[in-house]
């Protein structure tokens, strides 16, 4: 997997965009205590990364975009960054793996990558909280059920509908991110391909 300078610059642009959105909007969501802010940030971030993948359909580019975004997250002032950094890396890695399975970044591949990437945020606390904060799996599970119970207006005792509901909301948000990425990425590619041809024609004249 070797990228040329133009490809590296393209990935850096999309990675920086994801990183800047994480720092700006992510911090704002955190301060305003927006529910499911991590999930929303994952959807927005993945829509940027997947747009980049459609624009630059090279294996490994989505993960590389995530690496740049997670490095930029280090510059978030006054907030915890380790868990979000792991989150960004994991989301990018999962999206990359899904895209690799599909071989080409087709529309179903991009939608699946978005869906699986955002779905991961449901599992993220189970991975990071025990390692970073020493919290037990059972308490994280209770937190998850409480969050779902409040969201759907259910009793936290009915775990199956809550888990299925949360998974559904995460998947829909992820697929939506993929859908946006497909639209924006395709438009960008067409526009840049057109401008590239125009440039070539102007040189010929």
């Amino acid at each position, binding site marked *: 997997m070797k990228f040329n300078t133009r490809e590296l610059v393209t990935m850096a642009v999309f990675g920086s965009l994801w990183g800047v959105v994480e720092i700006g909007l992510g911090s704002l969501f955190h301060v305003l205590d927006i529910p499911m802010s991590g999930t929303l940030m994952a959807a927005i971030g993945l829509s940027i990364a997947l747009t980049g993948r459609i624009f630059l359909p090279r294996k490994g580019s989505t993960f590389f975009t995530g690496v740049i975004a997670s490095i930029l997250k280090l510059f978030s002032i006054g907030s915890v960054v380790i868990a979000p950094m792991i989150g960004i890396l994991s989301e990018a890695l999962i999206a990359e793996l899904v895209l690799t399975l599909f071989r080409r970044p087709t529309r179903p591949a991009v939608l699946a990558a978005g869906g699986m990437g955002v779905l991961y945020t449901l599992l993220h606390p189970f991975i990071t909280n025990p390692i970073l904060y020493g919290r037990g799996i059972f308490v994280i599970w209770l937190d998850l059920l409480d969050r779902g119970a409040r969201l759907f207006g259910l009793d936290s005792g009915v775990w199956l509908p809550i888990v299925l509901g949360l998974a559904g909301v995460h998947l829909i948000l992820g697929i*939506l991110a993929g859908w946006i990425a497909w639209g924006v990425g395709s438009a960008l590619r067409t526009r840049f391909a057109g401008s590239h041809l125009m440039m070539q024609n102007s040189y010929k004249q």
Partner: protein
Amino acid sequence: MKKISTLLLVIAVLLGACSQAAPEGSSVPESGAAASVLTVKGGDLEKTYSVEDLQALEAAQAEFKGVTYTGVQLSSLLRDAGFDPAQIQAVKAVASDGFTANYEPELANKADTIVAYATVDGGLTAEDGAFRMVLPGQEGRLNVRQLVEIQVIQ
């Protein structure tokens, strides 16, 4: 254009669904008898406490964000309600608006984890309610205000 409108509609519906979740802690002070009663329950056991009931138990102090609170150790309260703190799996603090925070047994049994009913300077604020959780050094969302119920999961 139609696609964009559909997309915006779907996003609005999803965001609307998300915003139904209760915010951290409680922002709406609840007055009246219901708010000044704390229920401790789990399994077949259930006991309610007023501020006076808590004042009758051994007092403890804990500091959070520069304020020193007076209250009762959570482990003492659980013992008084008939629970064995060594046997619990988790403790859930419930605020009047439905917000919840779950604690590990180690955290619930810490000496400075208290259920506060006052500060050293006087009563709790309207935002705090009649009772609040105080866990020094822990993140804000675990320090539940407007506390109305403690559920013990055994």
